[in-house]
């Protein structure tokens, strides 16, 4: 069981999400983050004064997946988030010690494995 964490451009979220859906990833968490990498921000101005905007808005996409799909999930993330310009982001992978599904008390890798059941409550 591994946690895949990607920092991506906001505008790439939809294609990232679609790519993960196609792989049957059972869940993901997205948060708005600010940060800097090689892009280092840019200079703007406000009422005549220059200001340095050093942190750029990005999205952090996290998902915990079974070991056997980690490789394909990372590949899918990279190709879905890629634009080729500076600022495309990073993908990190971590080991996960345990997982519990709160509703049922189940533990371990089964809790993050995609079951193939049709999602309920969508598309109506």
């Amino acid at each position, binding site marked *: 069981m591994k946690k895949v964490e990607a920092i991506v451009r906001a505008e790439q979220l939809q294609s990232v999400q679609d790519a993960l859906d196609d792989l049957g990833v059972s869940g993901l968490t997205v948060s708005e983050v600010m940060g800097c990498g090689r892009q*280092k921000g*840019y200079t703007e101005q406000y009422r005549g004064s220059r200001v340095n*905007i050093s942190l750029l808005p990005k999205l952090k996409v996290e998902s915990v997946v079974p070991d056997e799909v980690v490789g394909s999930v990372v590949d899918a993330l990279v190709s879905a988030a890629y634009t080729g*310009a500076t600022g495309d982001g990073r993908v990190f992978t971590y080991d996960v010690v345990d997982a519990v599904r709160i509703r049922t008390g189940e533990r371990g890798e089964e809790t993050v494995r995609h079951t193939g059941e049709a999602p309920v409550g969508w598309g109506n």
Partner: protein
Amino acid sequence: MEPTIQDTIGRIDTLWVLVAGVLVFMMQAGFLLLEVGFSRMKNAGTIVAKVIANLSIAGICYWAVGFALAFGATQVPADGETAGWLAGNAGFFLNNLPDLEIPALAFSAADPAAKFFFQFAFLAVSLAIVWGTTLERIKFGAYLIYAVVFSAVIYPVISHWIFGGGWLQVNFGMQDFAGSTVIHLLGATGALAALLLLGPRQGKYGADGKPNVIPGHSMPLVGLGVLILFVGWFGFNAGSTLSVADGRFAEVAIVTVLGGAAGALGAMATIWVITRSFDIGMTGNGVIAGLVGITAPSGYVEYWAAIPISLIAGILVVVSIIAIDKRLDDPIGALSAHGVAGIWGTLAAGLFTAPRLAEYNAVGEGGLLYTGSFDQLGAQALGVVAAFTSVFVVSFGVFFLIKKTYGLRVTAEEERHGLDLVEHGMWGYPEQFMPVPGTQYHQPVPPVDRPAARPAPLGVAARGAESKGRA
């Protein structure tokens, strides 16, 4: 010398026309809030700059040439009612205003200066409507260029045809009391021309061509905008009487409130039937559509007629927004609320005009429902077609030239960052984008101390970067 009763009436009329003009002027705030609310946060500030710039350009252009083209006459013609077939020809720079002949507005005893102010506020409303379709992707300079052409030529000429004693009003008796066609359809037509050349916002249509939802960021601001517009509309419609003496202005105000109410309820009911939700934005659009619909007939119909006219406008606006959204990205619904409802309102006068009020206003005749004659409806339709065609052709040409020279649209990268940042150097809501809300931004570090690798700069920095050696 004691003022005569006639002098006193003139002064009271002047007061009312000026107050009504101020109400119409305030509609700028309504459009501002409506557009801000229907935009995303990264494109909120640009609308403030745009509304102020457009209003300013409109004021100066209308003073210089607009009012003269719309209403001025070198002399009162023999029949005493028209300034010119195509356009007015006197009063440039408001030269000799107190003595200027304004034959089309001669029915009002108000001072010419008040009449100018009132008509200027109308122009500003029409210009504001143009930009509803262009939110979140247009280059700021395009606003400024088109605003000059629209305020100096397009609006004055068409308003002359219908308000100023031109061919549609005098030769065909087209009825447009406060401007369903002159103000609203004109603005929406310019908006359509701009939209066709601009294209949709990024992400509006998926790879399969299906429309995506890009929600505006503040429904409370939309609501405030709608209500300010509603208040302004009492100046718009009731003020178009240009006089108070016989109390018609109060009657028109009642027609207006009934229209706004019926539009809101019509739209709310329609969207509920379609989606089973009481949609906030659609209800707001319904108020606007109802008011736009009742604008042309407001001085020509009895109270009851406002309800069917605006109810239909409210239904039309919802159906039209949903239909247009499949192909054209109109973030605010301007094509539907001002264009479709404007056409309907103009035609509705041909159906519902009461003969006694056509006679009272001395324009046209009663509508189909009273007279059984299609004459008035035909005149209304002709007016719609003439105004739409001429404005569309000219506007499309102007926007096409802007596109080929200055450029109409920001780059894809700039669009992602938002117009606030790339056109104005700062977000409209900076703290929304700050790493820690409430902190300060720092002045940039001198270039020598910076890391060597720099991305392509954006916005203000991009324009100044080369010359300052910071690229």
